[in-house]
């Protein structure tokens, strides 16, 4: 489809704005509170369209792995419309409990938590718990920082754990990652993360275009040429 030069320029700048915003959100997430100031979270930025598509396909594949994960398909379709996805990881909660014996995990002491058998890796398991909840809680401050900065900058956001779990499966996060969440950001007129139909996996902009406009338009054009 041909577009005016100025409109192409606008599209390009909009994409660049999303890439810059993603980096500023990373800054905000990095400086958010951490218990004891210990490095716990990493933030991975995915702002390449093809990489986002890879991630969305991984999310879609996971939908069949657990009966409760049917909504993953809808999440994947929403994230396809995101301009960038930030993956926030917790790299200590799996292997390095906080040694404060808080009992949030239900094992009384960190020593018992270390000895507790971890869940086996299998398709229906997203995170191989028991994790150190106290460590993993740091991720919520990072996510909140991203959300609050995105609100200040006027950027649409959506928080998804499905994409975080998929990123772990794709092994694009640090190898000791125990818990992972994802935030999609979008710079567009309508937030792709709000007002989403229930069956968005089947009825969305792409399928509507494909089944109605793109099917009829070539024939219309040849008949009336």
């Amino acid at each position: 489809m041909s577009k005016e030069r100025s409109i192409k320029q606008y599209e390009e700048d909009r994409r660049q704005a999303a890439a810059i915003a993603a980096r500023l959100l990373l800054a905000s997430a990095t400086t958010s509170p951490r218990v004891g100031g210990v490095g716990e979270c990493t933030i991975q930025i995915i702002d390449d369209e093809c990489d986002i598509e890879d991630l969305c396909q991984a999310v879609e594949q996971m939908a069949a792995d657990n009966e409760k994960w049917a909504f993953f398909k809808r999440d994947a379709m929403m994230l396809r419309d995101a301009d960038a996805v930030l993956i926030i990881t917790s790299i200590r909660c799996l292997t390095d409990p906080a040694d404060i014996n808080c009992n949030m995990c239900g094992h009384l002491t960190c020593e018992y938590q270390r000895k507790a058998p971890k869940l086996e890796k299998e398709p229906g398991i997203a995170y191989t718990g028991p994790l150190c909840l106290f460590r993993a809680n740091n991720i919520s401050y990072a996510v909140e920082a991203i959300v609050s900065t995105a609100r200040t900058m006027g950027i649409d956001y959506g928080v998804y754990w499905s994409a975080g779990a998929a990123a772990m499966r794709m092994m694009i996060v640090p190898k000791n990652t125990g818990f992972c969440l994802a935030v999609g950001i979008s710079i567009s007129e309508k937030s792709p993360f709000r007002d989403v139909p229930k069956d968005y996996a089947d009825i969305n902009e792409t399928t509507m275009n494909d089944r109605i406009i793109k099917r009829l338009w070539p024939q219309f054009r040849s008949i009336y040429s």
Partner: protein
Amino acid sequence: MATDMNELLTNGLDRAVELMVVAAHNSFRFGGRNTVKIARLTTEDQQEIAEFCYSLGDMSPLAARDGRFLMELIKEPCALLMFGDRRKSDLNFNCGACGYKSCAEMNRAEEVESLTARGPSCQFKAINLNIAAGAAASTAWRLGLYCRVFSTLGFASFALNKMEDVDMAVTVSVSVAKNDPYFDRHQYWTDEHWKETFNKEFPTFTRGFIGAIEQE
């Protein structure tokens, strides 16, 4: 007549705390349902928490430090917000983070009592709780208050049963003191304690090489 500065400060603090609660109440949460409970603890509650933390002494030097700190903090206008939530999952994500294969299995598991929290808890409930605390903290930051998130005081307020029907808690403390009371709190550590802890934690710092005879 001009209003007194201290009156303006305390009134401003009260309004700010209300706004923080609004931000926390409306913060993002997984599952879309708001189950986090929020309360502002009174100065007497804070006094009690401070004494409790201080009494932990050698059991938890960090809690004792925060106890000593809180005793000083409440002498100037400040507020302590407590956030609490239940541990059982109503989200049905079956994600495995808690160590059980399904939410139903985790909810059925035997409850483990402790001073600091009841477990096992749903990871996402804990995330929701801490996002609410983070939202309150970021609002405080924007309003120009001094602010710090305390898990030690959260554990203490849970131990002292300051909120009904919760299994885990975290607190956010804000202050309008003369200078930022929350960071660089060297006055709450004694010199001897610092030296002792440093030598215990970093024994190799002053050592020549491994196996060398230590000179006292």
